[in-house]
């Protein structure tokens, strides 16, 4: 295909020409000794999290509640299975969509037998996924500061399993909880040293909108419910 790159040279030329005079920095950051503020500093200004794992967990739980995410600490996979069976019954689920992964595979073993499962593979049928009652995924991280679940196209079965079905279930371990976004990005950088997945997404609560009179409505396009099953 020969659509070209357009006015690359001209635009870069205009940018270079425009930048011949540096603009004054009107609000210098306190902590930059002549240089840029480093990501290590952000933490000192943003909402505090607390040092211990328990404090982090407590904040995550509190934010989940405000965000209307449903957080269920589970002692083991069996307890997770019980909760899931309850949700399936309550939501009258027929089919759930899953991907492959250690936690997911273990969970798949203990799903209610009458529940049909769709395992996402490349080239899956979009309509079939759209018709599923829930999507179950793993995640990369949980973020205490913001109450977010971080998924990627590698960890959560691609781009849309975590957002197309009306109920998103995340299965995670307590050790995946990090303090804040700074730690999350550092951790992702270490994990994906050989190449990032094509998508990283911080999911903060179920899908929502305030577009009508700024009144909160859940489930605008994505999941109406977000359930986090948290294993030790």
């Amino acid at each position, binding site marked *: 295909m020969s659509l070209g790159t357009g006015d690359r040279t001209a635009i870069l030329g*205009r940018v270079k020409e425009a930048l011949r005079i540096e603009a004054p920095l009107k609000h210098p950051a306190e902590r930059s000794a002549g240089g840029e503020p480093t990501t290590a500093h952000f933490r000192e200004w943003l909402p*505090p999290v607390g040092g211990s794992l328990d404090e982090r967990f407590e904040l995550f739980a509190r934010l989940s509640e405000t965000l209307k995410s449903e957080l269920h600490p589970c002692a083991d996979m069996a307890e997770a299975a019980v909760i899931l069976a309850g949700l399936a019954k309550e939501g009258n689920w027929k089919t759930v969509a899953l991907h492959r992964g250690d936690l997911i595979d273990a969970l798949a073993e203990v799903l209610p037998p009458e529940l049909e499962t769709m395992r996402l593979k490349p080239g899956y049928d979009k309509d079939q996924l*759209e018709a599923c009652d829930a999507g179950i995924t793993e995640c990369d991280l949980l973020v205490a500061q913001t109450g977010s679940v971080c998924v990627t196209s590698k960890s959560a079965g691609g781009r849309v399993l975590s957002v197309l079905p009306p109920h998103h279930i995340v299965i995670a371990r307590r050790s995946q909880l990090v303090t804040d976004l700074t730690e999350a990005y550092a951790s992702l950088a270490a994990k994906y040293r050989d190449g990032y997945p094509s998508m990283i997404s*911080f999911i903060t609560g179920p899908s929502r909108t305030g577009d009508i009179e700024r009144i909160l409505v859940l489930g605008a396009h994505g999941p109406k419910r977000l359930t986090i099953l948290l294993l030790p």
Partner: protein
Amino acid sequence: MTTHAGLPRHQFQQDANLTANDGPRREAVRKALGNYQTARNRTGATFTDWKSARNAAATIKHEALNHLDRYLEEFEQKFTARGGKVFWASDSKQARDYILKLAKEKGVRSIVKSKAMTGEEIHLNEALLEEGYGVVESDLGEYIQQLKGEPPYHFVFPCMHLRRDEISDLFHRELGTAQTNSPEELTMIARRVLRRAYVEADMGISGANFIVADTGMISITENEGNARLTVGLPKIHVALIGIEKMVPRLGDLALFLPMLATAGTGQHLTGYNSMYGGPRQPGETDGPEEFHVVFLDNHRTRLLADPEQRDALHCIRCGACLNVCPIFKNIGGHTYGTTYQGPIGSVITPHFRGLQDWKHLSGASSLCGACTETCPVGIDIHHHLLHNRRNAAAQKPASGEGLLWKAFVFLMKRPALYRLATKFAPLGGLLQPLLEHVPFNPLHNWTETREFPQAPLRSFRDQFRAHQAAKTSQAKGGAR
């Protein structure tokens, strides 16, 4: 909104008048913004030090913009290495033509779009529809505005001016759905229609909130999940992005995402913050086969070339300056007649679309500084409005104004003549009402909304002299 021929400033005056007199509409806007303010104050208060965070954000944006060439090239190199394509568009037409050509070449039939103000800026939807492509806006607010055939009212809250009954009427008329006054039911109606659009579309068009140089990614912030679906399901993803959206490092988002959420909607973090670095990678289950980033200049380099105003490009489009602006609250979003409304729109539009045609926007400010105060990246917005006023006047002094000042100086230099003039000044007050009925009343613009000042029959000078005389005679009397 009415349609106008004529100059932007005439349209502005006419619409400002209409909205300012539309009590219920202003009430709806005020209520929506009241809800916003409560949420924002609550979340803002959880920051350990908002001001330092803001200065850091300003510093990082300064770094990104003042080395933009380097960062654009770094992005391009990283992004293309992972299979993405970059197209550089100097103006609207070039961007539109590229997307149209791409759609044609790939045999695209239907398009779904997530919110992109750059799309509004280049009138992309109109161009696509003209060529016969169906294009559906998937953000709820944008979808409502698209159905209504109106541009967004606010670049973050597109339909904030509409009441639920108006939206229900609109859905009833356009989609044949039953009337309801529940925001929840209205949202579900849109949900049902739009889910089909994602599954069927073969091209997804998005904007972006940030370009990340060091990892070659773009970052999209949204609440609904519509952007996730727009760039997840179709086989081609096109992102149309202004070149100024740059941040140097992925880690910088750890600062910008919470600040954007807090300032924009009063959330700790917006529902979905997603970074995309290339099309579907080997081993991944889904995602687009092609990912095109279209970089848009469209006069941004003109603003970049002005070191004094360059920081106006730091804007992360959170919308906070609109939300706190007393002018916005009273004249509403459509009155601006611009893609970007409110204080920041008034700053940048004259650079993008011509200073003389859009200088009236710099006048539409009380210079209260609420915008500057609230801006998460420390743009001195109201100072920029003053700069625009100064530049506009320097470029083209107001006709007649120079003459008026000359006459004034002439008078001031001749005390006798000045005294004589003050004697006749009250006559002006008597003559002015007669002018009201003259077809081209030169004072019309002033007197339409203001009282004509009446000169007192006795000047200050006369009164002072009389006062002094009285005092002296009293003093004399007292001494006796």
